[in-house]
């Protein structure tokens, strides 16, 4: 799916970042079975460093892992208030990119989550429920090879 012809993920997330004035947008997807279904951040826009490339998440771990496992969007409006500082290092992408307010949505292939799209700000409370909702609506029904909504059948 990475090589969906005619779809340039880097360009697309750059555009998304421009459109919603995000500080950071990143796209993770799940690796095939031989790599034990780990999640890695494949593309990033607005990143401070290359740390995201080294992060490998298991299902249920980290932002991408949680969204992947639950299949539900996740909003952290204010990192300082919603996550305890002791818990913070379990979300390496937040620490690495110094995000303060962020949301993540699952990307579907049929009835399975195959990717996670994360967008966030480095200022507190920039992303709240209504703007997160707007962002989700702003995504069209498809994002490259992925669908933004859960499909009816595989």
């Amino acid at each position, binding site marked *: 799916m990475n090589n969906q012809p005619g779809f340039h993920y880097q360009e697309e997330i750059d555009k998304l970042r421009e459109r919603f004035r995000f500080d950071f947008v990143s796209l993770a997807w799940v690796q095939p079975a031989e790599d034990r*279904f780990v999640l890695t951040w494949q593309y990033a826009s607005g990143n401070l460093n290359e740390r995201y490339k080294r*992060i*490998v998440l298991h299902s249920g*771990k980290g932002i991408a892992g949680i969204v992947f496992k639950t299949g539900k969007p996740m909003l952290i409006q204010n990192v300082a208030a919603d996550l305890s500082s002791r818990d913070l*290092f379990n979300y*390496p992408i937040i*620490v690495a990119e110094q995000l303060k307010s962020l949301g993540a949505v699952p990307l579907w292939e049929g009835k399975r989550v195959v990717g996670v799209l994360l967008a966030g700000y480095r200022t507190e409370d920039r992303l709240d429920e209504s703007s997160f909702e707007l962002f989700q609506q702003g995504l069209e029904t498809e994002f490259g090879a992925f669908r933004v909504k859960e499909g009816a059948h595989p």
Partner: protein
Amino acid sequence: MIQMTEEHLHDLLKKMYLNSMEAIFFIDEDGNVIAMNPAAENILDVDVIRRMRSGVDESFCQTCKGYTDEKDLISCSKCYLDYPQGEFSSFQVYLKTRGEGIVPYAASYHTIDESRGIRVLMLLDLTKQQKTQEMLQRMNMLKYVIKAQEDERKRISRELHDSVAQELLSSLVDLRVLKYMDVGEDALNKLRQTEASLTRLLDDIRHLSVELRPSSLDDLGLEAAFRSHFKWIEKNYGILVRFSAELAAARYGSEIETVVYRVCQEAVLNALKYSGMDEVHVRLCEEQGQLLLTVRDDGVGFDLNAGEAKGTGLGLYGMRERAELVGGQFMLLSAPGGGTTVQLRIPISSFEGEANES
């Protein structure tokens, strides 16, 4: 030895009474204080002394809080004042002292004048000795706790690795066999999914086992354990650990290896949590009969004297305690903006013999 004359003895005894560090009380049959030396006056409450002097209440009881017997730390049963025939040549007594609250004393109490029933009570301050003993006990206790924790972690880790993971693996093999049997497409799909989630579960269990205590630490030594730990750190947190080991795969006592591993683990975790950098340098080497571990980052650093810890503050304490357990030295260097360096030195000369024997 000089010939002791009566006069001389009197003189010495008097000097001892006046200048001794020991508090001396002379007590009559009724438990009243008839005399005390300056050292004794120093420890008693001013009020109590005044009352004793004026004869309102001469009883020693108002100062004494009780003594230590077989049953209680502080007890008044069979008080030494009332049972002079009891064995009171050496015991521990608690006194209410001037300004210091209730303080333990080593005491001896015996009759010196049979006909008039005069007895002497001599006291020696025990607080310092008790503090030493408490420290010793705490160190020992801590050693036991850390050892018990390590042992338990090792046990659970082995159990997970050797039995739970093995059982799961054989079920997984069974499941794979199923795929080659004559089953429908639907069943095959479901099988694949189950296989995938079981594989993931097996992976999780292995992780858990390693996280508890890497078996490689016991089987292969520090270097191997560190290498797999740092790989794990890199994947989980996106931090690069630059590790250089100059040990030539040497092994040390398991106590030492555990301490080095845990201290390093904690130091690297601190670096990735607080330094703000994405690189940590770890160096492990031998120097002048010492095992030297250095964990360094070029991050934000912190003020060592700030007293206000960013986390719980327990990590640093724990590292220091662990280092002390094996007679090691723990050093922390940091300044705001100047990065942080943690250094651990453990003398290994005494353990070399052991390693050679095994």
